[in-house]
């Protein structure tokens, strides 16, 4: 299996005392579903942000699709986010002024896709997450679970190699939480999209292909 994302000696220190990540070496294979476990403050969010090109490491390297990420090249980071990555956030983070369908198609605006293409792709993905009939609804008209489904569709719209999810079930009740997790697994299997899901729920970790656990910035189990 091809490795889509890999870190080598990834370290992030805010100052001499606070070391968020300490020599992290992980690798994700294509089509893998991996959870990133750890207590709050263990460095999982920092790791996710660095992998997503939203934060830069103090030292070490990130390789995505065989290419080293240059954290000094802002344009390259933007292109990386546009083309290789999808994001799912804890509090859904949909744009309130846009309908579900527009939210899903929104990343493609910055990919310079035509409106017709955006609408078609968005609708197909809403179908995938089971929300096609709510395409014209605004986020405030959707439940938390539904909003997160829209967010999953949005993360997939650019056909990313990896979807990075930051506590995607953190704001949902356990039943909805299960549903969302199942949905991500289904998408992962059907589309062979690699998922890296940050969570602090150990139970969910058991349903992943594998779990990586961080403790004080170090990988405990990989």
């Amino acid at each position, binding site marked *: 299996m091809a490795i889509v994302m890999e870190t080598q000696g990834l370290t992030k220190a805010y100052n001499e005392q606070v070391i968020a990540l300490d020599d992290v070496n992980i690798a994700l294979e294509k089509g893998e579903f991996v959870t990133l476990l750890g207590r709050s403050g263990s460095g999982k969010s920092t790791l996710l*942000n660095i992998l997503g090109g*939203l934060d830069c490491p103090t030292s070490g390297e990130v390789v995505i699709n065989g290419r080293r990420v240059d954290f000094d090249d802002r344009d390259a980071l*933007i292109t990386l*986010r*546009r083309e290789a990555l999808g*994001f799912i*956030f804890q509090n859904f*983070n949909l744009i309130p002024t846009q309908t579900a369908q527009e939210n899903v198609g929104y990343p493609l*605006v910055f*990919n310079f896709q035509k409106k017709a293409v955006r609408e078609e792709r968005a609708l197909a993905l809403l179908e995938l997450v089971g929300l096609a009939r709510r395409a014209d609804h605004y986020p405030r008209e959707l439940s938390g679970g539904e909003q997160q489904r829209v967010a999953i569709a949005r993360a997939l719209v650019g056909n990313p190699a990896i979807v990075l999810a930051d506590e995607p079930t953190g704001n949902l009740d356990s039943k909805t939480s299960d549903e969302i997790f199942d949905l991500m697994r289904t998408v992962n299997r059907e589309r062979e999209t690699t998922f890296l899901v940050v969570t602090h729920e150990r139970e969910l970790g058991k349903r992943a292909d594998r779990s990586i656990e961080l403790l004080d910035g170090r990988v405990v189990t990989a």
Partner: protein
Amino acid sequence: MKLEKFIEYLKLSARQVTRKRMRVLLTALGIAIGVAAVVATVSLGEGIRFQAVEAIKDQSDLTLIEATADIRGGTIQLITPAKIDEITAIPHILASTAVIREAYATKRQTYLGVMGIDPTGIGDVIKPRYLRGGQIEPGSRQTVLGHDVAETLQRYEGVRLGDTVPILIREYDENGLPVDEEVDFTLVGVLQERDDQFDQLMLIDQGVAQELRGGDASFDGVLVRADDPDNVFTVVDGIKDLGLTATGAFQQIESVNRLMDVVVLLLAFFSGVALIVGALMIMNTMITSIFERTREIGITMAIGASPGDVVQLILYECLFIGLIGGVLGDLFGIVCAWAINVFGKPFIVAQLGDTFSTFAEGDITLITPEILVLGIVISIVLSLLSGFYPALKAARLNPVTAIRTGV
């Protein structure tokens, strides 16, 4: 693709603008008041300029222009026969005639401006109308006096039609001593009052004038009649292009224009102070709006928007606010201009008195398409300028902190 992206961004920004309608409207009103003030004052200035120019066109002989010698770049441009031909070739000239300028004095020391003319060629150019008598016989020592100068000579020297006007022409001999030569002209005509330079002039035959100069066959100027008041400045430019000076009633229009340029600029400047307030309001609104949307901007950047995209999106919002402000400002400005016309005109006409009685008929404010376009352009440019700082501020947001801490 570029245009599509632009339209797409405009749509996104338009949606943000419509999201907080009341706030956008109030902000736009701020700049609209400034634009209205500028539109109203500039239209007042333009209206007064228009009326003043119309008054000049009515009251003076605008199409009569005189081209005279001038010094350009160190060389004197004389009125040579070649120059006269060149002047005659300028488009929109109905008739022209070369003249000689002299200054004589009568025996009793009344100083006279003298113009040596071609009695047969002058008709179409100055269109003389005689109060008394008629035109000069070519080549003879006859004279026609302007209305005012004729009255002066009659009152103080008792010169009437048919009388002799004795002129002393002073020259200097080889020792530098003055030698006066007396020349008698017969007064054959008096012109009607014209309200221009001819009221003060003594007209004589140009051949005689050249002879009295000592046989010098040169000219001092060319009188030109333009075919239409609207073409006067074309003719003037033609004359200036030949390196000559143009004089005439049109200079009054030039000075009115110069004066009104300054007046309008000052008026616009002071009324434009309101624009600064409007611009600050836009900046304030945009900063607030961006603060409120911190998280949204963070998300937008996380899912692939570049800082440049964010700057564009926010500037387009300002563009809309500016456009709304400009249009509203133009509308208010038109209303203000109308109010000045209805309520302010009686006052202004009363203050100016009879000289500007033409004002009473027309509008004292004049709204031109240029003023309205200017209003909108000012509004949009100011909005964009005010939006620049908020836009850069938004683009510099760190997506991570924006998403985590944003409202």
